[in-house]
């Protein structure tokens, strides 16, 4: 592609950005926020990895201890996962909602490739703005935090300039890749925009990594060898991949079961909607399940820390409190971002089913019943996936729970796991209930008018 053509595409993307609706501006703000957050976390991770030696910072043991820094950096980088899930979901809605503009561009002579590149150009613009905001926020925030905490040797802790462009480029490239990936499922013709015919149901083989990972993790607890840590790591990675990849299949099976036993129209509608497209909800629920997985694992660690005692008395071990506090904070943040993606998923689903919802309401289905149906959709999807996340973490982190049960340990770890599942399902349900305003709008009679 020539430089002039690229310039033209950016110019058209700019023109499109100026003449958009309120909804699209809101979506763009979400994309910018996501890119800014991703930049912020990645800069934090890079910053931590570049600090050398033991530091004097007593305000965060995870930063002060040289050996713990890579783990903290990894945790920060992992926070990008829910943000990416959100960006992906927002990108899908943006693609579906741009239909008139894109179809008009095809009529004006743009090729399908041009339309895809326009999407990428728009993602590059939005990604660049987000990365800039994230960088400014990180640098300014770090300076302010160090000043507030009275950190003397600021040069030692501040992020050096050289990784900043690399992180920004990574975020902008990720935004463009997400846009390209999303556009694979949309067909833009001169007359309309349509989603590609529904993809085949998620394969049952997607849960193989989980089925392999779990026994490996459990086995690692009983092997007394130097390499059992590697075995544990391998099993944990397989289990995590299995939860992420298998969520859609689990949701499909759960929906089939609910559909078979449904006795009310609300449950029947919910089950069939999930069965028709388990992948879209599966992406979001996979992230929610991973939060439950890590949350349950943190609960087991918390039990070990509390059992060994001293953390409330011994100043040397007080960093555990800070570490656990930070971990729970990060988990809550990840859960919040993941359930926000759920709202975006609801918006996307209603864009596609708005007319049939309006027709159902016109035919006498109470809007309150349709709202209950969306809530049941969330429960049918979230409950089994989150339960699997918690069970996997329990089996992996506390096999003793099942082999040599000790009442206080069972009460704490199982109770904590149940709490994590309940929290995640309740958060997803609450967000669905909040997004029901979108459903009321979708079921409005104005959507019945012929085009």
């Amino acid at each position, binding site marked *: 592609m020539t430089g002039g053509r690229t310039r033209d595409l950016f110019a058209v993307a700019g023109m499109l950005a100026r003449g958009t609706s309120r909804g699209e501006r809101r979506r763009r703000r979400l994309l910018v926020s996501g890119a800014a957050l991703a930049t912020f976390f990645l800069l934090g991770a890079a910053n931590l990895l570049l600090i050398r030696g033991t530091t004097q910072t007593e305000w965060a043991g995870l930063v002060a201890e040289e050996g713990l820094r890579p783990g903290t950096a990894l945790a920060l980088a992992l926070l990008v996962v829910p943000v990416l899930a959100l960006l992906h979901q927002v990108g899908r809605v943006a693609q579906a909602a741009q239909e008139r503009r894109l179809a008009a561009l095809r009529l004006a002579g743009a090729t399908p490739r041009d339309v895809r590149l326009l999407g990428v150009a728009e993602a590059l613009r939005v990604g660049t703005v987000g990365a800039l905001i994230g960088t400014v926020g990180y640098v300014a925030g770090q300076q302010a935090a160090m000043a507030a905490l009275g950190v003397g040797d600021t040069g030692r802790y501040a992020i050096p300039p050289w990784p900043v462009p690399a992180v920004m480029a990574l975020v902008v490239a990720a935004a463009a890749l997400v846009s390209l990936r999303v556009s694979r499922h949309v067909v833009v013709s001169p007359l309309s925009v349509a989603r590609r015919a529904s993809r085949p149901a998620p394969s049952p083989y997607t849960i193989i990594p989980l089925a392999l990972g779990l026994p490996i993790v459990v086995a690692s607890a009983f092997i007394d060898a130097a390499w059992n840590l590697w075995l544990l790591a391998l099993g944990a990675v397989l289990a995590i991949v299995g939860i992420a990849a298998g969520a859609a299949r689990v949701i499909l099976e759960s929906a089939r079961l609910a559909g078979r036993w*449904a*006795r*009310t*129209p609300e449950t*029947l*509608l919910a089950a*069939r*909607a999930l*069965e*028709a497209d388990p992948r879209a909800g599966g992406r979001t629920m996979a992230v929610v399940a991973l939060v439950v997985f890590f949350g349950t694992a943190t609960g087991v660690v918390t039990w070990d820390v509390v059992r060994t005692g001293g953390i409330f008395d011994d100043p040397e071990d007080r960093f555990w409190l800070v570490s656990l506090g930070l971990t729970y904070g990060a988990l809550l943040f990840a859960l919040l971002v993941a359930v926000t993606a759920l709202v975006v998923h609801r918006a996307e689903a209603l864009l596609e*089913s708005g*007319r*049939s919802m*309006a*027709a*159902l*309401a*016109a*035919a*006498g*289905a*109470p*809007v309150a*019943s349709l709202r209950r149906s969306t809530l049941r959709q969330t429960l049918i999807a979230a409950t089994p996936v989150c339960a699997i996340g918690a069970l996997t973490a329990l089996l992996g982190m506390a096999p003793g729970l099942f082999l040599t049960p000790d009442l206080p340990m069972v009460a704490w770890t199982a109770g904590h796991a149940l709490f994590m599942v309940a929290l995640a399902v309740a958060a997803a349900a609450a967000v669905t209930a909040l997004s029901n305003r979108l459903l009321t709008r979708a079921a409005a*009679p*104005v959507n*019945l*008018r*012929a085009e």
Partner: protein
Amino acid sequence: MTPLLQARDVSVSFGRTRALRGASLAIGAGEIVAISGPSGSGKSTLLHCLAGILVPDDGEIRYGETRLDELDEDSRTRLRREVFGIVFQFGGLVPELTAVENVAVSLMFGGLGRAEAAAAALDWLGRLGVDDCAPLRPGDLSGGQVQRVAMARALAHGPKVVFADEPTGALDSVAGEEVLGLLLGTARDHGTTVVLVTHDNRIAAYADREIVVRDGAVAASPVVTR
């Protein structure tokens, strides 16, 4: 004779656009009435008002002695579910449900159990000649089959009035006439009143009476004679 459905000086605006400007009409029980007119004349809006889907800004809508424009949303929803049946140009079926489930779910909203609703739905699909489509989803059906399933959904609960908004608009002439023949034949057999919106004179000719709407008002409405 008291009309079954009545609109008196009905006005509706969407923002600055006035869709209806004082439209009035009366429809008797068992009558088959076509509301016709050019695109944008307000005929669909009038049908939505008569069916209790839209509440007019001004004027009255009566079903028997009941003022629809004074009912709250829940009561109008109940009326639409129990007394009216509605067929849209685009079918309005839920894409994720099978044909039989699309009909059954409407009956389930009316309080029927799933097994009874499915049996009744299958019976209606059979009457309309699409029982072999029962396990298929709308995406796997032809336009004519979708409309027949939509008609089964509208008729299955034994409505007093069926509202059909351009029911043949998305079909070719042969399929359109077949679908319309089935709808009107079934309605006549059951003494059901049909209010049909169309811009096609050939379709309007199937009705007992034609009401023409132009610029948001009824241009010609013969007196109810039955």
